[in-house]
């Protein structure tokens, strides 16, 4: 049971059941869609960019607990960041969930996001955690294409 709890930590379950910053964003000026054709998870990231800063970020879509929690936690972490720092955070999270950043995760700057580290023991689920982040990157780049995990 303990290893399942590493994946489904309370914080993950909390964000799954009560996703933060969920829904459309009236002030959005950037948007991107992400799709995982393997499982059908869909996520749309809405951004309000103010110059070089992410003023506001919302997401919507349907997905598993991991992708929903990852998206919800992402919106909390990204809001207020400069684009450059948001991209840097994406890199850190990517290393965290793929296990590339070592057993202790990505260090203190990740904050709450370290709960996503549990995914690294479930290779099939890594894409669930990373889909919202890839979609964020696409939104930051201003691309209109749908991002897929494949």
């Amino acid at each position, binding site marked *: *049971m303990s290893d399942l709890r590493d*994946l489904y930590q309370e914080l993950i*379950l909390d964000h799954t059941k009560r996703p933060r910053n969920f829904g459309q964003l009236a002030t959005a000026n950037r948007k991107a869609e992400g799709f995982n054709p393997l*499982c*059908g998870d869909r996520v749309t990231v809405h951004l309000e960019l103010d110059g070089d800063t992410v003023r506001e970020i919302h997401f919507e879509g349907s*997905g*598993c*607990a991991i992708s929903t929690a990852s998206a919800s936690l992402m919106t909390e972490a990204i809001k207020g960041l400069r684009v450059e720092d948001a991209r840097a955070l994406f890199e850190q999270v990517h290393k965290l969930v793929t296990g590339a950043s070592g057993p202790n995760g990505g260090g203190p700057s990740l904050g709450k996001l370290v709960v996503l580290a549990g995914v690294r023991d479930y290779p099939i689920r890594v894409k669930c955690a990373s889909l919202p982040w890839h979609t964020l990157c696409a939104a930051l780049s201003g691309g209109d294409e749908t991002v897929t995990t494949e």
Partner: protein
Amino acid sequence: MKAPRRAHPRERSSSGLDVARIRKDFPILERTIRGKPLVYINNAATTQKPRAVIDAVSRYYAHYNSNVHRGLDELTEQATEAFETARAKAQSFIGAADEREVVFVRGTTEAINLVAQSFVRPRMREGDEILITEMEHHSNIVPWQLVCEQTGARLRVLPFDERGELVLEQLDQLLTPRTRFLALAHVSNALGTVNPVGQIVDAARAAGVPVLVDGAQAAPHLRVDVRELGCDFYAFSGHKTYGPTGIGVLYGRAELLDAMPPYHGGGEMIRSVTFERTTYHDIPYKFEAGTPNTAGAIGLGAAIDYLAGIDAAALQAHEEEVLAYATEKVSEVPGVRVTGTAKEKVSIVSFVMEGVHAHDVGTILDREGVAARAGHHCAQPVMQHFGVPATTRASFGLYNTRQEVDRLIEGLHRVHEIFG
């Protein structure tokens, strides 16, 4: 399928099938997953292989590997003999009249694509129609969409109802004067529904429409007799029928196969080749270009022999019993909705859990040693029908037991523990 067929499902199986002995025939069932005995209930994706199949394949490679139909040596003779014997076994497995009507292909997908391109495509004119059903696997949708794109034909779809049964009342109306072909599943891979294929074939033939039946999910569970069904084409896969991957069978009525152009060009499928003119081999070789999957065919033959050695009535009774028990127990789990409750079903219990995504169910079951499938099952239109992105699907084979169903149920309770 809602009501249990037996009053006391925990009593010893009354099917008469010696399941314990059967389980010993499948080496993989001895292994554990994360310290727990493997519960393999993903049989609609692929079945496990009995030792007889594994041994037949390895004996071929160890003792008489050679290229069939190409040489005069002893090895070639033995390999060819085994390959053609496998064809004869496949012929009798589906009740075909003639060995020449059995074409070896990679699997059901290739069989359907072969028929789509060699039989249907040349017959289609703009505005003609191909009829399929709403419960088809993507492999019985996309090949027809390709033909439609290539010819300007239209795809029409016979819907299913809330139980997962085809709405037969609409069949007559969908069989129009423009309908040139009908393709449907014998058994739905997402719902487990057994379709009334005989009745549908009769209606299609009355309208002069040839029929292909996708038998991928039927072959491992039902006795198949293509002449009784009256269909023009029938396809199934070796790996879903306790045989190897990469081998399958396309049955086609001889006069249709005879009239069809080849699907692939290459060696084996020709009689003579010059740069000016090539003449093709007879059926079925005309459709078997290149070196075939000899080991696969031999393995499939061994799988058919294996199934033939099991009492068919006892096997059916056992599978019905496990399905009824699983349907009852899964339905009792709080927050679970079973998708697909047709009267005639085999093997499959597909379901959603309120508030929990199928992939999370799948991950938790996996940690409990239970291998089920979570996803859209290559049948996205079926998911759309029920308004869900994915389901969890338990699909049973001849070696599954009620005790394994209990392990599934324990896993589902674990899901509740975690998601609260």
